[in-house]
């Protein structure tokens, strides 16, 4: 990798890194992993491949709402970005089927709305 110069840095800060239009982020800090985030992350990656969905699965740090881990943020065009909490495989399935495919928010698991 090349060493950066101030100009490179400026450029990089303006180019958005390969952000797909739609994405799912799984909170993968100690608190999330302890609550099962790794399993949820793996599940999303597998299912998206299986179902051939056009959505990127990403990792992020803890968003702070530790009581509701694992936290999953979903951003799909046409819907508000929301954070689902206490996500397990069942909830993850509904997120893919309902939120991603049918473009309807999933009941009972939204903990925060990011507008």
């Amino acid at each position: 990798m090349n060493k950066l110069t101030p100009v490179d840095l400026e450029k990089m800060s303006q180019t958005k890194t390969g952000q797909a239009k739609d994405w799912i982020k799984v909170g993968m800090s100690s608190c999330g992993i302890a609550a099962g985030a790794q399993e949820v992350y793996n599940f999303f990656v597998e299912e998206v491949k299986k179902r051939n969905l056009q959505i990127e699965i990403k990792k992020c740090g803890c968003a702070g709402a530790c009581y509701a881990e694992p936290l999953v943020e979903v951003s799909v065009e046409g819907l508000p970005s929301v954070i689902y909490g206490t996500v397990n495989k069942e909830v993850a399935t509904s997120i893919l089927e309902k939120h991603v495919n049918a473009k309807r928010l999933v009941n009972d698991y939204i903990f925060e709305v990011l507008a």
Partner: protein
Amino acid sequence: MRKVILVKDTDTKRADQTRDFYTRILDYIRQGNLLEQVQVVRVADIGVYGQGLVIKILPGGVIYTNVSDNDIPKIIEAALQENKVVQGLVFEPKAKQYRLVLRNCGKIDPESIDEYIASGGYLGLKKVLTELGPEKLIEEIKTSGIRGRGGAGYPTWMKWNFAREVDSAEKFVICNADEGDPGAYMDRSVLEGDPHSVIEGLIIAAFAIGASRGYFYIRAEYPLAVERIKRAIEQAYAYGLLGQNILGTAFNLDLEIRLGAGAFVCGEETALIASIEGKRGTPHPRPPYPSVKGLWGKPTVINNVETLANIPVIITKGGKWFAQIGTTTSKGTKVFAVTGKVKNSGLVEIAMGATLRDIVEGICGGTFSGKPIKAVQTGGPSGGVIPQELLDTPVDYENLQKLGSIMGSGGMIVIDEDDCMVDIPKFYLGFCVEESCGKCAPCRVGGFQMLGYLKKISEGKGKPEDLGQLRRIAQAMQKASLCGLGQTASNPVLSTLKYFETEYNEHIINKRCPAGKCSHLVTYTILEDKCKRCGLCAINCPVKAIPGDKENGYSILQDKCIKCGRCFDVCKFKAVLKK
């Protein structure tokens, strides 16, 4: 975008009505054939607490509270139009989080330096290296008014300036990530969620004082944080943000990780330095302060994780901008790890000056059980309790100190009526006694003696004069201990004595524990009239202290009972009385 109506029942004192409420709104929407235009969603948390039935409309985020059925048509009608709200029902949440340190946590991939840069990362470093230079940088930090977030609240610019002014061929910077307060984990979250912001802060600090070497002192109990910092450092080296000629300038810095073995005292800066030097982790008297004579006798700046994570934002947005946030003496934000008997435990970042009530009730939703809050403990084992009636105090360094507590690193434990105010200081003092390094007598002996008195009181063997003795020892420890651990270890005891002396007296004079926590002072008895003779208590009693049978009923043998409370927990008919 289709309109979304979020619904939630926020009244925790009754059975949850979210589903019925949801059905009623859905029926209304079906009747009006509006299903294509709006979606109704039940949510798990709507960000408002104790306000009855709540509706939130998206996009826009208008909140209506205490909604009755008659309001539904009005609200939906308004929601379908742009910029229209139903006046009189709109709710403006008072308590809001302000995410500055946690700006990237939960947003970017902590393992990707590119994402950090894409969110404006390392631009602060660039500005410092190419525009500001060290003097102006320190000036900027002075303008910002930021104070150390590790607990003591020492102005950061002064630390840096002292170290800068010392003439030395070699200087060091250290990031203090030895977070040890029970219940506090904000540093871990920042390290795990946004490691590059801390590294950037540390590089800037090194540039300010002219250091060429830096250390990350992280406790080994944080394996994921260690792994992520390690990866982040490697990435920064690869991009030339660490090493020789950083960003093509003449500035060089090497960073290294040192693991702490989990000694609480090693969070104290002189003990931390000793630990890095490979010596036993014990503090030594200051002055000389580390800024003048620190690691290997060289000028050293030690900053806390949260302090360093603030630095890049201060640089990019300017010291003046930062100084607008907060109160006159405490600028910026503070992250708290709110735990204990609270509904929404987790990390909360607020601008200084928000009240404790905003935090525990407004943002965290009050107690889990719905019982009233008795007190809030801040500052971990070095802090104290703040009783319920003082929760409207704005949070800043001075205010908390006035109340007999401290800001500390940011642990905040919510205490309700089921917690005993003798038991809590006993726990914290016990922690400090175990963690005392034993170098100075006031801490080593004083802590042990105080703990002895607290144990005596909790066992019902206390005498009225013990309270005076506790105060005397506490004062001696505060005055004569070598480091912060001993000087502050008595704070939990002193603050509970200040606000809850009646509870101590209840233990001493009436031999009673009002919260039912001190097991020696609790008795369990079976209430004949409520007992259904199911025998569940007898089966579950670990010491077979509940003889009896289904015909004749059961009773507890007091001299055999170990007061474990199993019978109380398993009884389905509330027939076991705890007193």
